[in-house]
């Protein structure tokens, strides 16, 4: 037997599941860690009053956003539409932390030029469309996006996020029903995170599991533990493959937990303490990191190095975004329509003010 370094695991590393490669496991770790770290930076900026509006955390839900978005094929032009707690999915699709920071701080150079809040923005080139605050509305819109794929014979897939709250809306129903009838290549990811603002799931719906609703629309249903990153990837990948093969819509339920309030101002007085403690012990980022190390898929040095790279990138991005200006006031008037290019300036309002 040749001599072996004692730092290497004694047994051969277990096979990597779901057809993933080792580099991909590290990439997945990059995205969950980046999501967590970026939100921590945002929380600091929020406390300093530099985030102008509310801050919406996905603490404890990072794995479901990242694992599901990672199942799409960016090179094929797949598309997604996130909800407020799917920052991780946008990062996977190529959104830059700097763009997120600018957006939260309402900077002129933000993707929406200071017109919209938080992660409400999109990028047609990178393949994501920003949500609006009216829950459920993105389901019909993504039905339209995937209708265009079908009409043009493109083998592209769309993914839209909803939560236990959004699934109570009329637009969710209309959108998934339309997509089901048209057999569109759409994956509907239902995140069950326990609460919609303060309302627990049992007051939101009478079904036992959100995926039970799949039967009502005649679509395939599947589910996974939303805090198990690789399980999330695997279940979403199956749905994406079905969609690409022309087998229509899948409703995927991911069960996870929202460990912060609806937004940063919300003290979660309505949540039992033991519930929070239970889910803190079930942290998806820690669990995935442990899984990588214990399975021998990644060594401690490369994980630390990955974390250091994220910290450096965020240091730079925060400094840059903080130094940038707000938008020019009169820029508020342009771009409502393609034509005319700007709204009329009130006659009593001087230029620049």
């Amino acid at each position, binding site marked *: 037997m040749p001599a072996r370094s004692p730092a290497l695991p004694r047994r051969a590393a277990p096979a990597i599941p779901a057809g993933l490669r080792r580099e991909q496991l590290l990439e997945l770790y990059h995205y969950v860690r980046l999501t967590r770290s970026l939100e921590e930076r945002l929380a600091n900026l929020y406390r300093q009053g530099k985030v102008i509006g509310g801050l919406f955390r996905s603490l404890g839900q990072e794995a479901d956003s990242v694992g599901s978005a990672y199942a799409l094929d960016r090179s094929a032009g797949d598309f997604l539409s996130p909800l407020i707690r799917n920052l991780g999915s946008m990062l996977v699709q190529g959104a830059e932390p700097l763009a997120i920071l600018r957006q939260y701080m309402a900077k002129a150079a933000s993707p929406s030029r200071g017109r919209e809040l938080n992660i409400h923005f999109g990028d*047609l080139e990178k393949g994501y469309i920003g949500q609006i605050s009216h829950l459920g509305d993105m389901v*019909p819109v993504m039905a339209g996006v995937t209708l265009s794929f079908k009409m043009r014979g493109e083998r592209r897939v769309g993914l839209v996020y909803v939560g236990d709250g959004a699934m109570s809306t009329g637009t969710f129903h209309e959108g998934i029903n339309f997509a089901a009838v048209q057999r569109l290549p759409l994956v509907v990811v239902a995140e069950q995170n326990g609460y919609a603002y303060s309302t627990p799931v049992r007051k939101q719906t009478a079904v036992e599991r959100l995926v039970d609703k799949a039967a009502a629309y005649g679509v395939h249903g599947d589910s996974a533990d939303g805090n198990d990153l690789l399980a999330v990837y695997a279940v979403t990948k199956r749905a994406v493959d079905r969609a690409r093969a022309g087998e229509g819509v899948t409703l995927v339920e991911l069960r996870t937990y929202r460990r912060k309030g609806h937004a940063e101002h919300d003290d979660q007085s309505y949540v039992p303490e033991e519930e929070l403690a239970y889910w803190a012990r079930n942290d998806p980022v820690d669990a995935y990191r442990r899984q990588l190390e214990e399975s021998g898929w990644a060594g401690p040095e490369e994980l630390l190095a990955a974390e250091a790279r994220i910290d450096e990138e965020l240091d730079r991005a925060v400094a840059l975004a903080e130094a940038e200006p707000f938008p020019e006031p009169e820029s508020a008037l342009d771009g409502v329509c393609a034509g005319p290019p700007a709204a009329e300036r009130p006659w009593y309002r001087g230029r620049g003010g």
Partner: protein
Amino acid sequence: MAEVTYLEALRQGLREEMRRDERVFILGEDVGAYGGAFKVTEGFYEEFGEARVIDTPISEAAIVGAAAGAAHMGLRPVAEMQFIDFISCAYDMLTNYVATARYRAGLPTPIVVRGPCGGYVRGGPFHSQNPEAAFLHTPGLKIVCPATARDAKGLIKAAIRDDDPVLYFEHKFLYRRIKEALPEDGDLLTPIGKARIAREGRDLSIITYSAMVWKALEAAEILEREDGLAVEVLDLRTLVPMDDDAIVATVEKTNKVMIVHEDTRTGGVAGEIAARINERAFEWLDGPVLRVTAADVPLPYAPTLEDYVLPQTADVVAVARRLAAY
């Protein structure tokens, strides 16, 4: 030059655009094999196939939302509301999603949402509405209201080619009641945002749109015959963007102006037009800006009730006489 109805002119415009541009497609309830509740898309399913003439579930929000999503990706959807009354089911999608898309996210959303509006057909409260005021108030949506067969065709073609979302309100009373000779070849386009003088006059102006253009023209005939008044009728054709120059020009010309619309009075389009005249042409006025509109009630069914509530030619004549007396 063949004579075509308002409905046939609309159908021609849609068909020409679908033949010209393969990105154009239609979606709505019963628009496919059945050809639409009013047969606007009759023959389209056979010509263009089910992929481009899509029968949808009864889901106005999904129809508009899916149109928006497809438009983001470069297609040119035309969504039909079976009766325009049902557009309120898509109000959220239109006002919150579609109207804001370019401003907040730079998303191109070139969709047309069209459907039959209007009363005088004994349709009752839910098959007779005129919803333009609700959308006039929402920045980001264009609104066109053709009154003639020529504009029914010219405006649908312009709406489909426009890079912004356009609401196209076609009046169902006019569908088969008016005819016009239209050129059979060539591109008939009515520019969005340009009003039309439907009748020249110098004594007073009636600013109006859609089916009320015909009531105004009837009234103008009577006023000329019985009162010797030369009444100008301005057909707005587009409500957003509104042709302020044409409005100011007619005020400066006749110095007396009234506004006629079929929609109810309070919060209606007439109030907005009057405010613009007040701001831009106050010095030119020789009398108050008067309105003829429906009464502020849901539109009732019985002929005696509907006729009482909706504007009639005699109302236009009576108000014009009062205005002329200033």
